[in-house]
């Protein structure tokens, strides 16, 4: 497989610029207009985030077109897809705290996109299992990218809530970080289940303690602990924010292990 030319990364660079610009806008607008800026600033922020999402989608489409293969077959594509998923989840589960800290969501998504670019060019196809059909691998990676996006988004909003509470003693929405459990955990469970079924179907082994599998299992166990705390013990607020912020590192480790 020939290395993908740098052109595929151009839209990703544009997405990074959009996200960094959005983060800067959040910080500057908060300084000029206080913690609750005018609605036009909020609309502008949403438009820029949407633009970043469009750029990431274009970059992924370009990469796929150049490889002439199934999408999300390579680690950088999965990382970029995770950044895109984080933005999508942000639209669905917006942050309801001090406006300036929303910059953290932009910064984490931007950092993911930069990481994806840093792992370019792609010279070989990621192989979860040596002979896994590409359609299975695509579904598996899609679920993983959606889960990681949810964990990253939940982690950044939880961190924003923690900082917001510490600096201004302002209580965020208690449901911040909820996205990790409501979206991330089901997608991660689905990804693990698919991986096990695929392994069983192809080789008769549903688990083989590979690096990628082990990191995913670790992240899954961690988020099941968060699930227990949230659903069974009724934890919410600061305790869950701390846990979901810590969970971000596991999401990054999972992406690194692909």
């Amino acid at each position, binding site marked *: 497989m020939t290395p993908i030319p740098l052109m595929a990364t151009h839209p990703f660079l544009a997405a990074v610029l959009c996200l960094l610009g959005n983060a800067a806008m959040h910080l500057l607008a908060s300084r000029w207009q206080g913690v609750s800026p005018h609605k036009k600033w909020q609309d502008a922020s949403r438009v820029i985030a949407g633009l970043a999402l469009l750029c990431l989608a274009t970059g992924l489409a370009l990469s796929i077109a150049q490889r002439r293969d199934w999408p999300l077959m390579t680690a950088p594509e999965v990382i970029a897809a995770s950044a895109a998923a984080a933005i999508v989840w942000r639209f669905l589960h917006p942050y309801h705290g001090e406006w300036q800290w929303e910059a953290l969501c932009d910064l984490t998504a931007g950092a993911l996109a930069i990481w994806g670019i840093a792992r370019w060019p792609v010279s070989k196809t990621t192989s979860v299992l040596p002979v896994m059909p590409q359609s299975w691998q695509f579904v598996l990676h899609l679920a993983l990218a959606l889960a990681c996006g949810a964990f990253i988004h939940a982690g950044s909003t939880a961190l924003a809530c923690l900082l917001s509470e510490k600096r201004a003693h302002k209580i965020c929405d208690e449901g911040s970080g909820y996205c990790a*459990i409501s979206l991330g955990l089901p997608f991660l*469970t689905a990804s693990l289940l698919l991986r*096990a079924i695929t392994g069983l179907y192809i080789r*008769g082994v549903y688990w083989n303690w590979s690096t990628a599998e082990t990191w995913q299992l670790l992240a899954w166990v961690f988020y099941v602990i968060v699930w227990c705390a949230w659903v069974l*013990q009724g934890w919410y607020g*600061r305790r869950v924010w701390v846990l979901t912020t810590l969970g971000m590192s596991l999401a990054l480790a999972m992406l690194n292990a692909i």
Partner: protein
Amino acid sequence: MARNTVKAHWTAWWSSEDPLDSLWRVFASPYLTMLLLASLAMLICLGIILPQRPVEAITDLMANNLWLTSLRERYHNAADWLVRLKLSDIHRSLWLRGILGLLAFNLLLGTVDLIRPRHGWHTGLERKVLVNDPVLVSSPEQVLECVRQILHDQHYRYLAGKNNRLACADRSWTGPLLVYLGLLLILGGLAISERTAWWEDNVTLRPGQVRPLGHGINLAVRADTITAKIDPSGRKANNGHTELAFLQENGETTRKTLQNLTPLFYGSLLFYQTSTEPVLLVQAQDANGRNLPLRTPETGATQFMEVALHFREGDTPRYFVVLDVMPGSQLSRQFQQSGLERYVLVPSRDLSLRLRYNPIHPGATTPFFTVEAFRSAETLSFYQHQFHTAETVEIAGDRYSFQPQRYAVIKFGRDYGLVFILPGAVLVLLGIILSVRQPLKRIWLAIQPFRGAVNLHLVVNAPATEGEPPWFESLVQDIVAALNVEKEAGRNHPALGGKT
């Protein structure tokens, strides 16, 4: 603050009057679930950080010794501790089994508690709200009935307790129950797999070869036809198939086709074809037509009239050990010859043959074999020849016949644990999806006549430090409005056994 300490939790859980009930409460607690899951996460972390014994080393003593030597070179004295504490073999260690066993026990009790929550009444740690009624003149039963009606309207499940003075109500408990049941099924399936599952790996079958399955099963398989389509690009083909005949004492029972990388079910057995590989049958005869005895390095001193040489397509060595001493930096040591090369020794002629399989390359039309003959300890061959179909050649006055065939590499076994593990995983997924939208809402109620009034105590499963959950506040407001009473927080009912 003291309320948050482990000691305070323990005091609330433990009652010397009823140790069995206290033990139940401790082992069924979601806190214990979280603790055990955290221990499991820590163990998995150790498995990532510390070098783990590879599968190759488990099944091979020589590879195991090599791996241990490399571990000692890297970790010196700490290596002995790692091995002694089974930390170099975490995935098969007692640590992991112990944690999973405890988790299964905890989940089992937790499941019972989810279905019939009767042991939460005694907890004294969670937030309590006292609804005092100095005005309303009604019997405790009437108050409880009124509360029951409110809870019923809000789709709570109401479970009456002792003396009709205690009750529990909960909602959205199906999600957590499915997760608990799913996890129990997975853990049960893993235990069944460990105790009863067996697999026969890397079984080679030549055309016509019969292989008894063993393991007390009165069944054998015979490979009738083995085919493989060669990819013109030169890559290994994945679309080979083998026609298997299943044999019993009274003859052939059925016939099935085994595809590469697709499972085949027969009875309770699973069959997989890993690959189809080339095999070469070799025979030798002297000038008078008498068979010459042959040997191979693999068969040692035993001599055969015909030998079957198995080749592996691709350049992977036939046998290698990966020493995964440092995570991320794998060291591989290679032994013996490539998978494409095999040797045949002819002791009576002090002769050796090197046979090489040449997979199809771009531009070529068919794979072919090469044969080279060596005398004694010479390193230069005195005879070379290429062939791609069955052929007989003369080497040093003797006739050697080579017959290319294909053989199937299959794997078969039985694992009843799968019947539990996969449905369990699906249940976990369903339970998580169900529960995240509606977290478990559970309250305990206790009613107490007090100085002519009726006190209603409500206890919720939420940490006291975080304040009351919004849904609980709303529910209390509804009850207060319905009963027309005053609300007082932080008082406890003697029947609950909690602290003030």
